[in-house]
Each structure stands twice: as structure tokens, then as C-alpha cells.
């Protein structure tokens, strides 16, 4: 019995001391899912590691969740794409500095046969109005992510309130971008997404780009976190990463990223 207990204690000690081999310097990045799913980080992380010796540990959740996690001090850097939410985060005092990094495009994805019906519209909110008036099936993220916040904003711009929509055609799935696209394609519905996610998505089925927003872009920004609010934050390292990404070299790195030959991110 004593032997059993000592074994147990040893195991617990091993489990607690047990740490994986990590890079000397690393930061935790709370990020939007689209950047991870598109393979963007696989493109930039090795270069950042090489040039400034910092490894990025990316936790990909929706923008809303990323900001919440940062409010719990569980990230050293935010890379998100919802301006209002980022500004609100700065106002709480947890955010230190916000820098716009790059943009991609907003897309409406729809089934093959109806995709072209939206392209004539002048503004993406007109396309949204058309979906509403035809009561065409629409799949919403419903997860408070950057894309979801954008979608709500576009409905409002079209003079509509998505809370009043019938669940017969407006479906809130409360899932990540990938799951939402999988659902939307199976239901032959419309959905809002960003170009990086769409170009790298493998399960497109018959779905097509129904509308590409050429006026308002999907802007990703970097937000550092205030070390006065979160004393454990690795502020120096995250500032180094921000400096690198916004440098000439970093911008060149961002604009050299392509998916199947298509450039997706454009530095600001």
C-alpha cells in the first residue's frame, strides 16, 4: 500500500513538472480562426522564429472569444478582425496598443444556381437585403466571432434586425467558420465568410462566391495587452513580434502568402 502511494505521488510530480520541449522564447497569440485555418501562421511562424527568435503559440478561437480570453490575461497578443470590439477592448484598459496589420475580402458564399443573382448589387448590404426579401436560406455563425459581428452590422446597414428573422430561413449554428461553411454548403444556403478561409477551404461542393465586397475590407489588427492589468504578460516579446510584422520585411512576408496561387492578405 505504501509502495502504491509513493508510486502515485511520483506520477503526480512527474505530471506537474512535465513540460514539453518548448522554444526558449514564446508568446501566446489569441487569434481569429480564419488566420489559422488558411495556413497563414504556418507561413509566418518559422520566419519569425528565425528572424527574432520568438515562437508564436496560436490559440485560434473566434474574435469575441479571443478578446474574452485576453481579458482573463490568457494571451500575450491579439490578432482579430472586428474593429468595434477591439476599440471596446482598448477602452477597458486591458488593451495597450492597436495596430491595423492587413486586410482580406469579405465574401458571400452561395449555392451554384443562385450565386449570380447577388452580383448586380452595389453594396454588400443590398445583397443582404435581397437574401432577406427572397427568404433564401442563410447560415449565421452566431458565435460572436469577427465574421458574426460583421454579419450583424451588415443586416443593420440594410435596415434589418436579425433577431426578428424567422428560423425557417435564418439559421444560427453557433459554430466556427469551417463548421458553418460545411453546414451552409450542405443546406445550399448563403453565408458570410472571408477570402482567406474560402480559398483554403477544401469541401466547397457546388458553392460559389456570390458577392465580393470591394468597398469595405476585412481588416485584421494586432492588439498588445497592458502589463499593468496583466503582470504575467510577455509584453516585450509581443511588441517585438508586432514590430517585426509591421516592418517592411514583415509586410513583404504577409503579401507573399498565397493560397492556390491567389494572394489573400494585403498589408496596411
Amino acid at each position: 500500500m505504501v509502495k502504491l502511494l509513493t508510486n502515485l505521488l511520483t506520477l503526480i510530480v512527474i505530471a506537474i513538472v512535465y513540460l514539453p520541449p518548448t522554444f526558449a522564447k514564446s508568446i501566446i497569440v489569441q487569434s481569429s480562426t480564419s488566420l489559422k485555418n488558411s495556413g497563414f501562421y504556418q507561413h509566418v511562424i518559422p520566419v519569425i522564429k528565425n528572424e527574432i527568435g520568438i515562437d508564436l503559440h496560436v490559440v485560434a478561437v473566434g474574435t469575441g472569444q479571443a478578446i474574452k480570453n485576453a481579458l482573463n490575461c490568457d494571451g500575450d497578443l491579439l490578432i482579430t478582425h472586428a474593429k468595434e470590439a477591439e476599440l471596446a477592448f482598448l477602452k477597458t484598459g486591458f488593451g495597450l496598443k492597436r495596430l491595423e496589420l492587413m486586410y482580406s475580402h469579405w465574401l458571400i458564399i452561395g449555392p451554384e444556381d443562385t450565386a449570380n443573382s447577388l452580383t448586380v448589387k452595389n453594396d454588400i448590404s443590398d445583397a443582404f437585403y435581397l437574401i432577406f426579401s427572397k427568404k433564401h436560406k442563410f447560415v449565421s455563425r452566431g458565435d460572436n466571432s469577427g465574421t458574426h459581428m460583421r454579419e450583424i452590422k451588415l443586416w443593420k446597414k440594410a435596415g434589418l434586425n436579425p433577431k426578428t428573422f424567422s428560423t425557417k430561413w435564418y439559421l444560427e449554428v453557433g459554430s466556427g467558420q469551417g463548421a458553418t461553411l460545411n453546414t451552409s454548403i450542405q443546406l445550399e444556403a448563403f453565408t458570410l465568410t472571408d477570402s482567406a478561409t474560402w480559398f483554403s477551404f477544401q469541401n466547397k461542393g457546388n458553392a460559389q462566391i456570390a458577392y465580393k465586397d470591394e468597398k469595405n475590407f476585412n481588416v485584421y489588427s494586432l492588439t498588445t495587452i497592458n502589463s499593468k492589468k496583466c503582470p504575467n504578460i510577455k509584453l516585450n516579446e509581443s511588441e517585438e513580434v508586432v514590430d517585426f510584422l509591421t516592418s517592411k520585411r514583415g509586410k513583404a512576408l504577409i503579401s507573399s502568402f498565397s493560397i492556390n496561387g491567389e494572394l489573400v492578405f494585403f498589408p496596411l
Partner: protein
Amino acid sequence: MGQITNSFLEAFKLIFSFDPELIEILYLSFEITIIAVLISSFIGIPLGTVLACTRFYFRKAIISIFFALMGLPPVVVGLFVYLIFSRSGTLGWMGLLYSPTVMIIAQIILITPIICCLTFQTIESVHLKYREFFQSFHIGRLKAVKAYIIDSRFELITVILAGFGRSISEVGAIIIVGGNIDHLTRVMTTAIALETSKGNLSLAMGLGIILLLVAVFVNVAMIFIKNKFLNPSNQDL
């Protein structure tokens, strides 16, 4: 049909490519699961045995709670562990969030009730059968418990395998506390979730098939050990 055939092809391609990334992910999956199952067994088996062989106040209540905990939704456990180990949480100073250690902790919370309850059930049935026998011969409680455990070692292996099965296939809790970070906290199940969200369905299924194959291997190995070394017909007690 095409998708499923593709995923089998994808699985075989992956297995025979000996992709170092795949090996890393598989290794981490098993490391986390095995450590979690070991610790849970060290907690759950004695606890289940004590609950089965003793009588005390609130015993029934405790048993009911443990049985209810068997159905804990992993996401809830993930959130609970996240809130504790978040840098703003009680144990945030340990800096363990987004590490394999915290994934092990979440797994322990999930599988200890399973191991405890199944042990309880196994040992209790033996206890009810032999209690009077041992009492009439004035055999001490500790000795009796030892006999119960030796007698039901077969079932206890199955109990541990049940914990293993739950742990290796778990995704909801560990994706929250581990964060699915590449080369750090990515395991088979979270990799499958990621590939699904990329729309890479055949690769996701391929990974699932590999996970299944390895799990089958572990189970077969345990059954082999059971039959070879623990079978009563091979061995005198």
C-alpha cells in the same frame, strides 16, 4: 462513398509516410491519455473499493454524485479547468494553461468518476458474495479487500480500458484548455477537429482511422496481457 474511400487511402498514405508531425501528434495523444489513465486509476480504484466495502454516513449520496459525474459533459469540464488555470483564475500563477499538463488534469477529472464507479460496481458484487464467508472465518478487512481486487483484476483491466477509451477520444475539454497549439498541445482529436473545420474531410477521417487502429492495438494488447498473465487457469492464487 468516394469520400470514405478517399479517407481510407488518406489514412494509409499517412501511415506509410511516417510523417514526423503525425508521429508527434500521436505520441502526445498517448502520453496525455496514459498519464491521465494511470493517475485516475490510482485515485479511482481505491476510492471505488472503499465505497464498495465500507459503510458510512453520506455514502449513498457520494456514490450517486460519482455516478452522475460519469456523464459530465467534457466542455463543462474544459471550461471549469480553464477558469481555474486561466491567468486570472485561482491557479493562474502556475502558468499551466495551454500546456499538456493542464490537458492531463482535465482528462483526470473526466475519467476518474468512470473508473471509480465501475470499480465500485465490480468490487461491490464480489464483496456481497464473499462478505459473510470472510466474516465467519474472521479474516481482516484489508486481507478481504486484497482478495477482492485479485479476484476481480480481470474486470478492473476492462475498467481501465473504459477510461482509456473515453480519454483518447475526448476533444471538447482538451481543445479548450490546450488550445490546439501546433507542436505543443495538438493531439489526434483536436487535429481531426481542425481538419474538419478546414473542410479537409478525408484527411480528418484518415486521422480518425489511424486513431481507431492504434486504440484497437492497445485494447488487443491489454486483452493479451489479461489472458496470458492474469487468467486464473494459468496461475494458482
